[in-house]
């Protein structure tokens, strides 16, 4: 059929569609150039840069304390973990040992961040496949985490709670109680997520076998986080290169072998359970001690190159610092998970329908500022 049309003398053109930069499913200002044949996707070409702020160039001008707050604006849903990545880089380079208390608090808030990010993703995921109510249920639970952040860190999204050497201030007295309350609340709500969306026959049909990514391709594309793990690529930085207090807790790295959208979806749902378990292991025994160690007012990293990776809600965030021994980094590169994950969109979407593209893009969980750093 196809070849007949191709061989005929009829003049035919590809049908281009501009999805975005303002489009409900592209979660921000991502623009996708689609070539389609009826409903079938023939090619997806992302066009980036609509909100590029050149954070890497700005970092070359800022001091190490100031860099931290810029990372809030990259992947704003894992802002705490991004902050942590920069702080860990600086602390490792200076060979500062931060107090146990700091490590534990960082880990707890990091996991709360992951939970909040996955809750938002779940809500938006449902919306992308057309179930609008999930959005509000996801946000209801995320609001509680945001309240915890606001009370302790002073901000709900761009928290900037980490500084090189520790934390900006100690946790709020209510922190432990609020966190426990939240865990107790969310344990009753997470099964509801499954009942509402996961089990739904329409949802299952929409997700199963859609956007398949094999393990080899996942590794080759550098797909990390739930995207990689949904394909069976064991890429959890928390497991392989534990940082902060993550070496003291036991948790399971969720791995699935199917590599389809449903696998990526279920990895995230499972990760929420694991994150809650990590928080539960730590919340009752936050060690006493200082919340920061004194650093010089002007931090100068020794000459050399430093690399630190952490696991954000989206995957592996790498911070690569080239230092010449001055108070500014000579070159600072963020290896952001969203960037690599987006690059495989064309690979998994070709041959599917427009609805499949939206569904698999939602399971990639793209945050555009993370890509347009």
């Amino acid at each position, binding site marked *: 059929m196809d070849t007949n049309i191709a061989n005929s003398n009829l003049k035919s053109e590809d049908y281009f569609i501009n999805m975005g930069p303002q489009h409900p499913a592209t979660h921000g200002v991502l623009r996708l150039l689609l070539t389609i044949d009826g409903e079938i996707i023939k090619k997806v070409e992302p066009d980036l840069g609509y909100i590029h702020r050149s954070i890497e160039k700005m970092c070359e001008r800022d001091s190490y304390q100031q860099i931290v707050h810029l990372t809030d604006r990259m992947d704003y849903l894992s802002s705490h973990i991004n902050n942590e990545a920069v702080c860990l880089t600086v602390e490792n380079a200076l060979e500062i040992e931060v107090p146990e208390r700091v490590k534990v608090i960082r880990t707890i808030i990091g996991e709360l961040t992951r939970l909040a990010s996955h809750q938002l993703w779940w809500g938006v995921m449902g919306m992308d496949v057309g179930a609008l109510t999930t959005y509000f249920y996801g946000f209801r639970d995320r609001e509680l985490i945001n309240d915890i952040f606001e009370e302790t860190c002073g901000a709900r999204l761009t928290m900037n709670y980490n500084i090189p050497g520790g934390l900006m201030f100690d946790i709020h007295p209510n922190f432990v109680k609020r966190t426990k309350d939240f865990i107790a609340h969310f344990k009753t709500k997470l099964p509801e997520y499954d009942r*509402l969306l996961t089990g739904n026959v329409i949802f299952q049909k929409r997700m199963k076998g859609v956007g398949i990514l094999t393990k080899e391709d996942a590794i080759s594309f550098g797909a990390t986080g739930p995207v990689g793990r949904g394909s069976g690529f064991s890429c959890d930085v928390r497991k392989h290169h534990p940082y902060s207090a993550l070496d003291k807790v036991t948790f399971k790295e969720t791995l699935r072998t199917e590599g389809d959208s449903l696998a990526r979806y279920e990895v995230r749902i499972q990760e929420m359970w694991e994150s809650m378990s990590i928080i539960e292991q730590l919340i009752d025994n936050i060690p006493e001690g200082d919340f920061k160690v004194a650093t010089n007012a002007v931090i100068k990293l020794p000459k050399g190159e430093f690399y630190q990776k952490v696991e954000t809600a989206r995957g592996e965030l790498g911070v690569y610092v080239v230092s010449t021994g001055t108070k500014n980094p000579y070159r600072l590169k963020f290896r952001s998970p969203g960037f690599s994950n987006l690059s495989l969109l064309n690979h998994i979407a070709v041959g599917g329908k427009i609805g499949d593209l939206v569904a698999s893009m939602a399971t990639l969980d793209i945050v555009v500022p993370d890509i347009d750093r």
Partner: protein
Amino acid sequence: MNITLSITKNIHNWLFSIMPEGIASIAEMVLIAVVYLAIFAVAGLYLVLLERKVAAWFQLRIGPNRVGYWGLLQTMADALKLVSKELTGTVKADKFLYNLAPYFVIVTALMALAVFPFTQEFQAFDINIGVLFLLAISSIGVIGILLGGWSSNNKFALIGAMRSGVQTISYELSVGLSILTMVLISGSLQLSEIVEVQKNGWLIVQGHIPAVIAFMIFMIAGTAETNRAPFDLVEAESELGAGFHTEYSGMKFAYFFLAEFINMFIIAAIGTTLFFGGWLSPFGITESIPWLGVFWFVGKTLILVFLMMWFRWTFPRLRIDQLLTLEWKYLLPLNLLNIVLMALIVWLNLTIQF
């Protein structure tokens, strides 16, 4: 022209007494049209409000509560806003078809309303092929959507329109066949007579198993026919932006929007008439007060409307191929089986009669 308009005998007689026959019947038709238009424009707006309130309650929200007491004037304000908005369009749009499309949709939606018996006397248009008329009218609406999507010269709109064509044509079969199942048991195409038949028990009770199956198929197909979630591929917000009405603004958009809600009301009204006894009260408890029929009719219809809203705010959207799979592989074969079953039941006199 000898159509019986039986809405109120008094006005009919009065009009015919003061005017010659031809003018009087035209005047009566215009009068009734204006009354229907006014009632259903307002009713449509309140359906929108109901949808928004119901959605809010499903979603842990409060819903519109600023304009008027309890937000009751919210959709009125929206309509005023839409009327006062500029009508925009694309440069290369096919202007004639582009402007025509919304009227197709809204006119067919309003026309279908004419044949419903809201209560014994309250029916504009009691034709003996009422059910057939409904099916015919409801299939014209899709032409408006196709025209709108095609003439907008917008790629998203075109995809939406093509989806709409595929979807509506497929699901009309199921709507038609499930209605046919009920016609088998009622033995008439005239809506007022279908209601009369149900004085011995609503058809969903009379026809028991096949009627329940027919009702389920009718609700699914009816939801699809009105392009509502989970079958809202035509609009598919997260895929196509706004689908076929992407390029419409102001009042033309409002026509599409209103038509969607009136269509939803029509599907629910057909369901009420065919399955739940129309304006008949349960067990005849208010038979002595005829005008309460309107209350029962609207009440039953709203319950079905609520069911469709419940679907919408719970389920994810189907994909286009799954939509067709559902119709051609599940609903249609089941429907055909169901007709045979119903025919057997009617033939062997296994219906339940009170």
